[in-house]
């Protein structure tokens, strides 16, 4: 359906005979679609040396002929060619798959005959003031907008629609200006206000709402490709929310659009740039950033700069600059050289193509005033604590040295009688064999340790080990990977009988298997071990065939276990060897292992603690002090203090550790944001052949496409100058594009229906004079965004009823190109969810802050992330019910509520969202925890309010739809309510199940069957087309 619509729209207007053919309206679309890709502005793809996009080119002599001889059809080669049926001659050629219709040929004929007059493309001619058109119905217009719209309707002998009902208008304008439905209080205030100015009062109040900025920001975030992760490959989280909050604040403060432009493109270059102005420049750091090892850094750095050019041009000028990265634009006046002229403005950021930090520099750290004070206090305290502890350390040094002389005599030894001990000290234990590559040996806990890289393991048949227990195994590990198996004795296939220890992101998993997934114990530690350091891991099993017979210690401390399976009913003995560094042929191990010991029987707490301590401290004491690492010195001192330290020393250590932890926590809490900066010496910029990063050609300086607008005098040749160029009075596009976006915000479609293309291939405006009128007013008003929106929503055009009219030929003007009815359309992804939260009383209205994680089905991140490492954990509390623009966007796996409802993935600049209708949307609105919970809370709010059943049903309806329900509508709801009451009366467990969806707490002890019945009815109201649609 969509496709067909597009095809119709791109047909040229058929001029009635006798009417003058307009180049812009009638001729250019034909030439642009069919001819310019070979006979246009790009010399690289030009065929036969002919260009048809200029009068000079089209009329020049070319191989003895002229494509166009104005006024003389017969002499015009163009006419010969487009009417030829000879395969070698005809144009467009067959292989282009393009053909001209008889109507199109007729237009070209008449145009050539009438002198082949060329006109510049409308959007490159600056708007000029036009008097308001004459109209017949003088009582209809409320402001200038209405004059243009009515004039057009009257030209078609049509009437505007009548005004929408007050309720419809209230809901429409509240949704448009705040993204939320009206609150009952707002509704009452407006509906009871009988004054002439009631509507204006409402509009003014909405424009002052802090939710205005949130709602307006969403479209801007789409254009700016705002997200919470880096996008490529590893797709790690980044912090950009300070920039998002800047946008909200700027819109709420009604920052003039020229200021809004300059600060985002070049805030850092303003004299005395404030923190806020530097945050604003995050606009052009929202692009994706790559961390895939092996990538060629320059290839991606160039990609980032290209992205800035494309995004900036698309957002402010509606032009498709991207086309001219590889060659001169085929349709619009942007040469490849000019593309790289724009590129040069954005090419001086001190950045890397292959990023090494999740928040790739340049970044700005933005502590709050409280954080700054706290940090200063913390640093002072840390300094004092350090000094105090340094003194103690110094005083202790001789005692510690003395103690070490005798320490080996007093330090505990590992438990004796190990049936297996592997020390990795050059010589392996008896019967232990190495399989695969030799490991690298390096300094370990005691002597050397083996470094594994999953290409080797050790095996020992160890017949004396009975895994059916009891037994205890201990080993030192320093893992270097998120998943690995340091120790196992398990079959690779079949029953997979045996035992294995697996480390996953620091958590230890233990599997004791008789038959895989049928008879086994599977447990995992709740805590993770921490990374980057040695840890002593001890596991013991009492042979009970029960999960509770398994115990795990990290560094001498018992740790709790999560039981995943506990149905072991047979032996776990097998014929496999004990393996170190691998599970079976599959899962290997990355990292260091040292001192593996295996015993029969169990140990007590103290035994385990002494074992680890003894090995670690003996290892350090046995190492000459100059060969110890700083960490080892620290461990030794800590151990000495633990056992022999005086109270004052322990207190000093504690004080330092608290101060250090405090500083770390504070620093991590200070938000950062990616920003633009200029390098002191700018990078040279070159035209890149075919746009390829390693094919530099001539050098270019920063400059803009000459044909669009003149460069302002005195503007600096940097991003600040570029921003000033965009908002200069001679720029033909910026104001039109901005006005078009705001119009589309209210009407669903812009006056230019291709907001992504104001160039030659885009659609002409439906109301060109209105667009220019608004563009000029916008600029002359000081780029007043709220002012323009107010003018739009105050117009009679906006206030029309949105009902469609039927004619014999079907629905009249289905796309509302004549604006003969009010706007309507499905709510956006964000608005749908926000509406449910709002009417349910769940919405947490906090503005701004870090992104949040509401409900999401499990497993979506694991399915795609590197090694299934990233997991989505929903927030608890407020984070579940914040406005949807605050939902965390992971580009690799965007929230399904966004993807299902035409939200972009935020990988690239998007200036228009689609508006599809699919069964997956119905499934989400009916079944998603968010919406089911909202139905329950909405039902509860209604039931809690005064009134009887009839009043409650009426309230339920009007709370969501604003208008009052009809008798028939209420009867439908009432019938459903009765049937559900009957059902839940006999199925109380079902009622409880339905009411258990969602974390929101309702009233204590409700009548469950009654509330469940009302929840069912509330779901229906929340799923009505009228609810999902702005009308």
């Amino acid at each position: 359906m969509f496709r067909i619509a597009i095809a119709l729209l791109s047909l040229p207007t058929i001029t009635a005979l006798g009417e003058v053919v307009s180049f812009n309206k009638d001729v250019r679309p034909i030439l642009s679609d069919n001819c310019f890709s070979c006979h246009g502005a790009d010399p690289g793809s030009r065929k036969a040396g002919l260009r048809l996009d200029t009068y000079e080119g089209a009329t020049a002599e070319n191989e003895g002929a002229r494509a166009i001889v104005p006024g003389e059809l017969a002499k015009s080669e163009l006419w010969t060619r487009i009417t030829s049926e000879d395969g070698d001659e005809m144009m467009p050629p067959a292989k282009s798959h393009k053909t001209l219709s008889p109507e199109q040929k007729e237009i070209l004929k008449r145009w050539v005959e009438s002198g082949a007059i060329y006109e510049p493309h409308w959007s490159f001619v600056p708007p000029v003031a036009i008097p308001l058109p004459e109209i017949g119905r003088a009582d209809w217009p409320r402001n200038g907008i209405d004059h243009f719209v009515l004039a057009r309707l009257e030209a078609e002998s049509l009437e505007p629609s009548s005004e929408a009902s007050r309720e419809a208008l209230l809901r429409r304008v509240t949704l448009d200006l705040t993204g939320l439905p009206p609150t009952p209080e707002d509704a009452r205030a407006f509906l009871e206000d009988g004054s002439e100015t009631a509507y204006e009062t409402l509009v003014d109040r909405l424009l002052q709402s802090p939710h205005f900025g949130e709602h307006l920001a969403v479209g801007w975030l789409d254009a700016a490709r705002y997200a919470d992760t880096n996008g490529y490959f590893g797709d790690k989280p980044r912090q950009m929310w300070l920039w998002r909050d800047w946008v909200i604040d700027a819109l709420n403060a009604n920052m003039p659009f020229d200021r809004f432009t300059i600060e985002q493109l070049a805030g850092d270059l303003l004299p005395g740039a404030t923190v806020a102005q530097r945050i604003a420049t995050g606009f052009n750091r929202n692009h994706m950033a790559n961390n895939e090892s092996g990538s060629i850094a320059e290839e991606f750095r160039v990609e980032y700069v290209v992205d800035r050019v494309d995004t900036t041009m698309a957002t402010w000028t509606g032009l498709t600059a991207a086309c001219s990265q590889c060659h001169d634009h085929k349709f619009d006046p942007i040469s490849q050289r000019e593309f790289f002229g724009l590129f040069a403005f954005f090419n001086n950021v001190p950045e890397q193509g292959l990023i090494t930090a999740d928040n790739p520099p340049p970044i700005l750290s933005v502590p709050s005033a409280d954080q700054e004070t706290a940090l200063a206090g913390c640093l002072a305290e840390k300094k004092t604590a350090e000094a105090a502890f340094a003194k103690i350390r110094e005083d202790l040094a001789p005692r510690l040295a003395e103690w070490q002389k005798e320490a080996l005599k007093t330090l505990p030894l590992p438990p004796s009688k190990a049936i297996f001990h592997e020390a990795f000290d050059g010589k392996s234990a008896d019967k232990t064999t190495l399989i695969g590559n030799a490991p690298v040996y390096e300094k370990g806990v005691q002597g050397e340790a083996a470094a594994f890289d999953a290409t080797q393991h050790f095996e020992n048949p160890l017949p004396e080990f009975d895994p059916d227990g009891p037994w205890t195994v201990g080993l030192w590990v320093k893992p270097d990977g998120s998943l690995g198996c340091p120790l196992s004795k398990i079959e690779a296939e079949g029953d997979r009988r045996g035992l294995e220890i697996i480390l996953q992101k620091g958590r230890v998993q233990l599997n004791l298997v008789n038959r895989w997934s049928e008879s086994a114990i599977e447990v995992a530690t709740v805590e993770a071990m921490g990374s980057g350091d040695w840890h002593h891991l001890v596991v013991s099993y009492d042979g009970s065939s029960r999960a509770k017979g398994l115990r795990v210690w990290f560094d001498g401390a018992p740790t709790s276990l999560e039981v995943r399976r506990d149905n072991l009913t047979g032996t776990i003995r097998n014929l496999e060897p004990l393996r170190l560094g691998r599970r079976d042929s599959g899962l290997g191990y990355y990292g260091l292992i040292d001192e593996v010991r295996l015993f029969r029987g169990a140990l007590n707490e103290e035994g385990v603690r002494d074992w680890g301590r003894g090995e670690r401290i003996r290892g350090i004491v046995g190492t000459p002090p100059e060969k110890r690492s700083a960490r080892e010195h620290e461990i030794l001192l800590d151990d000495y203090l633990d056992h022999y330290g005086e109270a004052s020393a322990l207190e000093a250590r504690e004080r330092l550790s608290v101060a250090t932890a405090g500083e770390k926590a504070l620093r991590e809490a200070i938000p950062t944001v990616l920003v633009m900066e200029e390098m002191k010496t700018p990078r040279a910029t070159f035209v890149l052949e075919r746009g390829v990063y390693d094919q530099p050609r001539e050098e270019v300086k920063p400059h803009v496409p000459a044909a669009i607008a003149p460069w302002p005098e005195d503007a600096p040749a940097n991003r600040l100058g570029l921003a000033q160029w965009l908002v200069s009075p001679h720029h033909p596009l910026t104001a039109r594009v901005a006005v078009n976006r705001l119009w589309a915000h209210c009407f669903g479609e812009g006056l230019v229906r291709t907001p992504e293309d104001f160039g030659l291939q885009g659609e002409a405006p439906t109301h060109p004079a209105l667009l220019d009128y608004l563009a000029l007013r916008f600029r002359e008003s000081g780029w007043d965004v709220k002012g323009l929106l107010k003018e739009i929503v105050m117009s009679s055009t906006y206030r029309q009823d949105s009902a469609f009219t039927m004619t014999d030929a079907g629905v009249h003007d289905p796309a509302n190109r004549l604006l003969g009815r009010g706007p309507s359309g499905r709510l956006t992804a964000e608005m749908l969810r926000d509406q449910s939260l709002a009417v349910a009383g769940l919405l947490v209205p906090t503005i701004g802050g870090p992104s949040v994680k509401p409900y999401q089905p499990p497993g979506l991140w694991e399915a795609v992330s590197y090694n299934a490492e990233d997991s989505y954990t929903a927030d608890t509390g407020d984070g579940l019910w914040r406005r949807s623009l605050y939902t965390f966007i992971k580009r690799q796996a965007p929230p399904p509520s966004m993807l299902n409802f035409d939200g972009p993935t935020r990988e690239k600049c998007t200036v228009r969202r689609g508006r599809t209708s699919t069964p997956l949307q119905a499934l989400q609105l009916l079944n998603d925890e968010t919406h089911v919970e909202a139905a329950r809370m909405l039902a509860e709010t209604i039931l809690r309010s005064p009134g009887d059943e009839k009043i409650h049903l009426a309230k339920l309806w009007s709370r969501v739809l604003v208008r009052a329900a009809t008798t028939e509508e209420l009867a439908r709801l009432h019938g459903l309510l009765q049937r559900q009451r009957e059902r839940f009366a006999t199925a109380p467990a079902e009622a409880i199940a339905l009411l258990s969806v969602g974390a929101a707490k309702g009233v204590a002890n409700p009548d469950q069957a009654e509330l469940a019945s009302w929840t069912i009815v509330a779901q229906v109201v929340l799923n009505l087309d009228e609810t999902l649609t702005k009308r």
Partner: protein
Amino acid sequence: MNDFPDRRQFLQSSGLGLGSMALAALGHGGDAMTNFAPKAKRVIYLFMHGGPSQLDLFDHKPGLAKHHGQELPASVRGEQRLTGMTSGQASFPVAASRFAFARHGRSGAWVSELLPHTAGVVDDLCIVRSMHTEAINHDPAVTYLQTGHQQPGRPSFGAWLSYGLGCESRDLPAFVVMVSRGSAARPADPLYARLWGSGFLPSNHQGVSLRSGGDPVLYLSSPPGINRSTRRDQLDVIAALNGGQLAQRHDPEIATRIAQYEMAFRMQSSVPDLTDFGGESESTFEAYGPRSREPGSFAANCLLARRMAERGVRFIQLYHRGWDQHYNLPSDLRLQCGDVDQPAAALIRDLKQRGLLEETLVIWGGEFGRTTYSQGKLEPTNHGRDHHGRCFTMWMAGGGIRPGIQYGETDDFCYNITRDPVHVHDLNATLLNQLGLDHERLTYRFQGRDHRLTDVHGKVVRGILA
């Protein structure tokens, strides 16, 4: 239960073609845009994510044994760009394959010992050994193969197909994606929603993930406490109330919405029916292998793929992760092959036996191949291979592709193509061709330009057509 009679009446009498609207919204773009008679109706794409090693699986190079451990000649390596993972390597020792090859079938195609089941169906396969791509890293290379562009933003293959051909099924989506995890020890590289995204096409063309845990399709199950009759009751009331609005406001969107809710209701039974293996015979499970009953395994996904083919899903995309053998190639490659060999071969046989292979195009392969030289040290029993885009192997079956041939040749080092190169765009042009679509005419106007899956490139590879 009170079933409002006027709902039915309304649906029948509205004359708005609700059924077709619902189809449109599930990926049906109206009439198919075929340019000529299609050979294939649908595609099953077995994507081996990470880049399987062509010279250990299909592209047999017996002559490499005598170069084993020696430096790869500079004349072979040429000027090509290497990934940052090996560009700093001082030595590029040739690593001959450690796996035995043999010729199989009447066609005598060479297949490695790692793929014994695939070897059993070679006479149904067209093995293309001359695939090539400019991309050298996963993210751009996979994005390239699936969207025709290395950077994000374009529609994926399945979205193009949904747009171009629409949906055959009345109650399943046109484009379904399934992901399985490989057995290799090495961590699996990431995937991205964009690989089944709709780019600038309307979002109803995006792929629908079919998941092995939780709801097979997101939000498919009604919440606890709502059974099928309650849901029906709710939908009847919704339809009646929406119908009232439609009568007043005449907005065609309302009719579409009514149809969507009805299709959602049908999906609540059609999807569980699809994923319920209850009716499959014991011999089918045996054919697809020991993991075919394990939800989420590649084997189970292959069986699901056949069930979707039977039900008219247009583009069935499987991703099997874990083929990035930078290290531990000998052991990890064996594990990866163990995951896919039997199920993929079983799928070919199963489709054939049911008469579906002729109209179903099956593709097997990854985003690039792997280097002939060892990444890291060449050990007696172990080594790795880096990414290699200059030549790699894919196979196709069914859908009017010539079976039992090997197409294209590479040099003795399996480094450069010596005959019949097939570029990513050529592959995509050929696949579209088999589906009845001219890759130069399947276009969508976005930002003023008529975009294609194959950009401005691509030639149909006539030599592999039946």
